[in-house]
Every structure is written in structure tokens, then in C-alpha cells.
């Protein structure tokens, strides 16, 4: 394990690296603009948005929020143990992080199957167009995050590993970004209309 470290107090080295934080802000702004557009559309079709929101199961949304939050906690613990040099606990928490992501995708898959079976697809109405576009775009991010975590997991376990703490921190920052995006999606899509 390469233990090259930098201080995150430096403006050029936020936890995970400056390039990743530029990506995080770009993603947050992109999702933010789309959510603002959704809220704006809801003012023109208040009844459609309210009735459509009631077709979603907010308990499923809350359960998925908890899965992502707990998964984010495991990721933070994994990074903390890596900084202490405890590789066994690092890999254990990485596995638990990935499990959280898989559970999220499993519940989302169940929800998608249910909505498709009921006919609430992409073109059903404006609300469901936003629902599918935003949640599917988020699911793609979770899938990419899982691929990154698998690659870091393999890298950390190697005896002659070139994976640095900064690499793991960067993958953690990407994973937490998925949490942040979901935290914005959940109340607006599932709760407020």
C-alpha cells in the first residue's frame, strides 16, 4: 500500500482531490438545475404532480435513503481504518459499502419493475418523465460508483499495491456524491408535491 499523503487543509487538496470536487460540483449543479426545472413544472401542473407523487411509495424512497446513508457511513469508516493502517477492517467496510449500494439498486429495481407493470413509464406524464430521467441518471452514478469501489477493493488487497490513500479517498468522495444527489432527489420526487 502506497502511503503518500497530503493535508486536506490545503485549498488545492480537498478530501478526494480537487479534480473530483470539480466533478462533484458540476454533478450537483446539473441535478440541481433539473430538480429546479421539475419544481417549476409542478407549478403549472400542480394536480398532475400531486396525484403522480402519491403513486410513488415514499417508504421505499426512505428505505433507499437509509441504505445509501448507512453505506456512506461504512465508506467513511473504511477510509478512517485505512488511515490507521488496518487493512482487514478497511476491506470489511468496503464490502459493506458495496452491499449497501447493491441493496439500493435491488430496491430501485423492484420499484422500477412495479412502475413499469402499472404503466407509469417515461412518457406517462411530465412528473414521471422527470422521475425516470432523474432517478435513472442517479442509478447510473451508483453503478459507476460500485465499479470504482470494486477496483479500489481489488487494489487495496494486493500485496504490492500502488493504490494510495488518496485513491481510496477519491472513490469515497464519488460514493458520497451519490448520497448527496439522492438526498436532493428524495424529498423533491417522493415527498413535497
Amino acid at each position, binding site marked *: 500500500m502506497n502511503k503518500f499523503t497530503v493535508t*486536506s*487543509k*490545503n*485549498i488545492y487538496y*480537498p*478530501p*478526494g482531490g480537487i479534480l473530483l*470536487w470539480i466533478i462533484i*460540483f458540476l454533478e*450537483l*449543479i446539473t441535478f*440541481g438545475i433539473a*430538480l*429546479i426545472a421539475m*419544481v*417549476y413544472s409542478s*407549478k403549472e401542473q400542480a394536480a398532475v404532480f400531486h396525484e403522480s407523487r402519491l403513486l410513488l411509495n*415514499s*417508504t421505499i*424512497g*426512505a428505505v433507499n*435513503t*437509509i441504505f445509501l*446513508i*448507512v453505506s*456512506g*457511513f461504512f*465508506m*467513511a*469508516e473504511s*477510509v*478512517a481504518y485505512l488511515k490507521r493502517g488496518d487493512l482487514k477492517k478497511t476491506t470489511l467496510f468496503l464490502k459493506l459499502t458495496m452491499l449497501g449500494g447493491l441493496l439500493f439498486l435491488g430496491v430501485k429495481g423492484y420499484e422500477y419493475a412495479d412502475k413499469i407493470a402499472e404503466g407509469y413509464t417515461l412518457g406517462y406524464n411530465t412528473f414521471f418523465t422527470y422521475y425516470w430521467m432523474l432517478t435513472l441518471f442517479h442509478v447510473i452514478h451508483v453503478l459507476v460508483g460500485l465499479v470504482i469501489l470494486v477496483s479500489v477493493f481489488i487494489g487495496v488487497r494486493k500485496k504490492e499495491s500502488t493504490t494510495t490513500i488518496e485513491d481510496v*479517498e477519491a472513490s*469515497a*468522495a464519488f460514493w*458520497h456524491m451519490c*448520497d*448527496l444527489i439522492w*438526498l*436532493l432527489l*428524495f*424529498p*423533491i420526487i*417522493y*415527498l*413535497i408535491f
Partner: protein
Amino acid sequence: MKKTKITLIILILLTVVSAFVSSTIGVYTALILLVLTAFKFIGISLVFMGLREAHPFWKGSILVFLLIFLGIVLMILQ
């Protein structure tokens, strides 16, 4: 590590509270939900992502984003 555990418990509680608040009908329901979201967002970014120990520029940037986003959403909802 103790702080991350306390944050986890608070975040789960806030999520459960959000789900309950959404089932009530009131003038301030949307406002309460968005404030709860803000607390969760801050918890994850400062504690889980480690921004608490980062340069103030990054902490400030994430808070400015959150304030602008929630401010616009609340303005449209009014």
C-alpha cells in the same frame, strides 16, 4: 469515529422524520422537509466526506450551493 456514528444515527432519524412529516398536510410541510434535507446534506458533506477538516473554501462552497438550491426551490414553491 464516534462523530461518524452519532452523525449516522442523526441522519437516519432525520430520514424517518422526513417520511412522517410528508404525510402531514400543512403550510410549512415543504419548508420543514427542505430544512431536514439541508441538515442531512451538511452531515454527509462535513462528517462523512471529511470537509470539516478541509479548507474553508470547500466548506463555504458546498453551503453556498445548498443555500442557493434550497432558496430557489422555496421561492418557486411559494
